[in-house]
């Protein structure tokens, strides 16, 4: 019996092996890789065991998870450089230090040069591999825009991948650098996007649509506030005055959600659980190009938010609150009067017995 095809060209696309070369040691904490292990939509196992019909076989080379170590691990990276791993996606986690400013030293690297016995810097790996990669993905805010290591007064000259390769850089498959920001990136955002790209490389779907900051629009089109379950409190001018048990809008306690592109309130943190404002945490804007400097101090109210929240608080907010509470109390919290146990039917039905 011929094998059933559940998606077009299934046998052909499943015969493809796509490699993912995942650099974990940019100037990073490796929090993205760690977070990725908690993803469930899809999970890491779903990706590498081919749980989705038509999906090419995916081999992930990641230092935190690899069975191999030492030269056994770096062999794949040299193979990719020599064109022996095709196709591959290069994932970069962590910002890139400026290696032009530190003489013979290094800010970060992995593997070592057999001739010089010096570490191979991450920047050198990017130089060697980016031209051969079908797609380059910057994961986490460090790799996308620089993030914490690129704070003011940093000694390393840290920057994001687009700052390093160029904002208009495109891969040999004509795909711009895909940015998945977040500190760390939301777990499912990472695995879902890997799946998206692997499907695209197999010709099964388009490449993801990106916005001006390189973010997939279907994930980062809305602000945190636009998907926040506390946003209605803002509308009603009702704001929390202390952290914790006060479950109203957190903007006056420093939440930056109204000016942050992020889907965490919508997607939750993992398996739908958690997510900053969902639980009671202020949004600290960790997905944004301006993070962290433009949002510090985090626990203070943003200057613009102060204006607009005060507008809500002192004008229409109280009216909305009063109107809604009243109509709930007077009308919607009361059952219709025909529900009773008296010896009569008052529902409006005319009985015929």
């Amino acid at each position: 019996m011929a094998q059933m095809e559940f998606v077009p060209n299934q046998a052909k696309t499943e015969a493809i092996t796509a490699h993912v070369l995942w650099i974990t040691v940019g100037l990073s904490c490796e929090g993205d890789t760690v977070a990725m292990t908690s993803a469930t939509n899809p999970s890491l196992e779903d990706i590498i065991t081919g749980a989705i019909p038509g999906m090419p076989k995916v081999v992930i080379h990641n230092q935190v998870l690899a069975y191999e170590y030492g030269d056994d691990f770096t062999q794949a990276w040299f193979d990719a450089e020599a064109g022996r791993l095709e196709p591959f996606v290069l994932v970069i986690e962590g910002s890139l230090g400026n290696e032009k400013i530190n003489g013979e030293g290094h800010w970060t690297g992995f593997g070592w040069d057999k001739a010089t016995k010096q570490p191979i810097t991450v920047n050198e790996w990017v130089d060697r591999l980016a031209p051969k990669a079908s797609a380059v993905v910057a994961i986490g805010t460090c790799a996308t825009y620089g993030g914490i290591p690129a704070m003011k007064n940093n000694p390393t000259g840290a920057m994001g991948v687009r700052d390093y390769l160029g904002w208009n850089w495109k891969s040999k498959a004509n795909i711009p650098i895909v940015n998945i920001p977040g500190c760390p990136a939301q777990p499912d955002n990472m695995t879902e996007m890997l799946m998206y790209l692997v499907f695209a490389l197999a010709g099964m779907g388009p490449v993801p649509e990106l916005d001006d900051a390189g973010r997939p629009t279907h994930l980062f089109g809305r602000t945190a506030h636009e998907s926040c379950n506390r946003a209605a409190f803002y509308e009603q001018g009702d704001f929390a005055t202390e952290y914790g048990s006060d479950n109203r809008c957190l903007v006056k306690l420093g939440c930056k959600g109204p000016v942050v592109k992020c889907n965490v309130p919508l997607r939750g943190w993992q398996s739908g659980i958690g997510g900053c404002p969902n639980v009671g945490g202020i949004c600290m804007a960790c997905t944004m190009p301006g993070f962290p400097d433009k949002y510090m101090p985090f626990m203070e109210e943003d200057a613009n938010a102060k204006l607009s929240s005060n507008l809500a608080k002192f004008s229409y907010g109280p009216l909305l609150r009063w109107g809604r509470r009243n109509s709930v109390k007077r009308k919607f919290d009361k059952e219709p009067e025909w529900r009773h146990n008296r010896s009569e039917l008052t529902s409006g039905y005319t009985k015929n017995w």
Partner: protein
Amino acid sequence: MSTIETPTGQKVVVKEMSWDPITRIVGSLGIHTEIDFTNQKVNKCYSTSMLFRGFDIFMKGIDPRDAHFITSRICGICGDNHCTCSCLNQNMAYGVKPPKLGDYAFNLAESADFMFDHAIYNDCMANVDYSEQMVKETNPGVLAKAETTSAPHSAIHGYKTIADIMRALNAFTGDFYLETLQVARYTREMYCLFGGRHTHPSTILPGGCSADITHQTLTDYYVRLMKYMDYCKRSVPMHDDLYDFFYEALPGYEMVGFRETDLICWGAFDDPDYVDYSYQNMTDWGRRRFVTPGLVFKGELITTDLVEINLAIRILLGSSYFEDWVGKSEPFVKHDPLGNPVDPRHPWNKQTLPKPQARDFAGKYSWVNSARMYDAKNDRYVANDTGGGPFARQWVTAKAGLVDLGFLKATGHSIQMVLPKTGFMPEMELEWKVPQWSNAIERQRARTYHQAYSALVGLYNLEKAFVEVRAGRTKSWNHFTVPDDAVSVGFHEAARGVLSHHMVIRDGKIANYQPYPPTPWNANPRDLHGTPGPYEDAVQNTPIFEENGPDDFKGVDIMRAVHSFDPCLPCGVHMYGKGKVRKVVHTPTGMS
């Protein structure tokens, strides 16, 4: 490879071998060795880290209330430990004490983190070194023996032979490995109930926890906690069987990763009935922690006093890419808040002056500087290690005998634990006894027992949190103001060992902030006195049991020694000479 003649006239085959990167850890570490294949031992070892970001540099001058948000980003697996430590530190600086529910929330979040971290690290990273696939490639003789050795606790965990246990640990195919990946998810869900997200939380703040904690939050935690208890009941006996087998199958295995029992533990999980976060009372509230702080020299518990511990910390240079700061400017802190003198090499006074340069194993070769404990009695600087976390925590707690939660009790020589009845398994008693050695196997074993320990700490705090919520005391955060000047410290434990944050505030801004995570204690290079760091020391003591010769040597015994410390910085071991040729075919599981 070279053949050299020793002073005794023996001809020995010596080979330089390096592994870079070391995988299945978080962070950047390199191990560079010289191995004597004639006598099957490691002659020399150098530990190197290739990563520098400079947190303590770019944090100067910022608002101190940003410290926990920023320092969380030091580490991607223990970020929440940093965040928590920074909040303990800030509580001291601001003189704020959270409501009890806030303290319980910290303990519930951090115990869930330990439950997650020890599970994923032990069985999805470190124990891959003991998996069937690895043992087959390194010690086929041992695997053959494992096939015919019955597992003593098979009735509990369900694996008939030791080889069955090894198969269960195979990366991405073994059923215990795969189950642990799931366990590592729902334990992080437990964390997120209080922390908002993992690993960089959004609700852990100075003054308390900003999660909205209700009966629902606690119920969601309870359900997952009891699932985890069930997992521990199977996991602990299974690991005992596996580790005991290694001692039996390879006599002398206790020397793998062996070093002097020089341990440190800063303690964790404050008791809200006693803690006030002040430096003045730190000795007392430190001893009330549910994990006891302690300093151990040569197998002797020297002190459990956090003030005494604080004053003994020194940061030494030597083989790291930094310049000395002493004498270049006035020290920040000459006396601690109790009036005790503070050394210029204490973290409060440390300044970070990076000097990038080429790596030279005869000179400077790492971005990690050498943290040491000063032994005043013998005027020496000791390279204490964290035992990878659980080993030191349990060692100190057991010996100190201060912890007694009823179902979790330190006896002076052991820790007795009782796990409650769960849906499918009866109540179970476990006892972790202080072992004879500080070695690779015992660090691994302690980690599996510490999963049960952390679950019981979680249970105790959960019951206490229920009391608060049921009584309507749902406030979990208290207001504070930032003083113009302060000197403070936070002592905590990351999953893999001691974690401290030292802070100096001047004019309401951070003047100095020095975080010391566990791995700099373990992975550091030779200091200015030539004393090697703990990895170097432990690997240098390691005999070689691997059956492969120099040409296809994998270095699994060295890997087990290093992995037992639960490294958490990007680190590696390089391979010189004719290393094993990597197969270009890929494993059927797809994992590289």
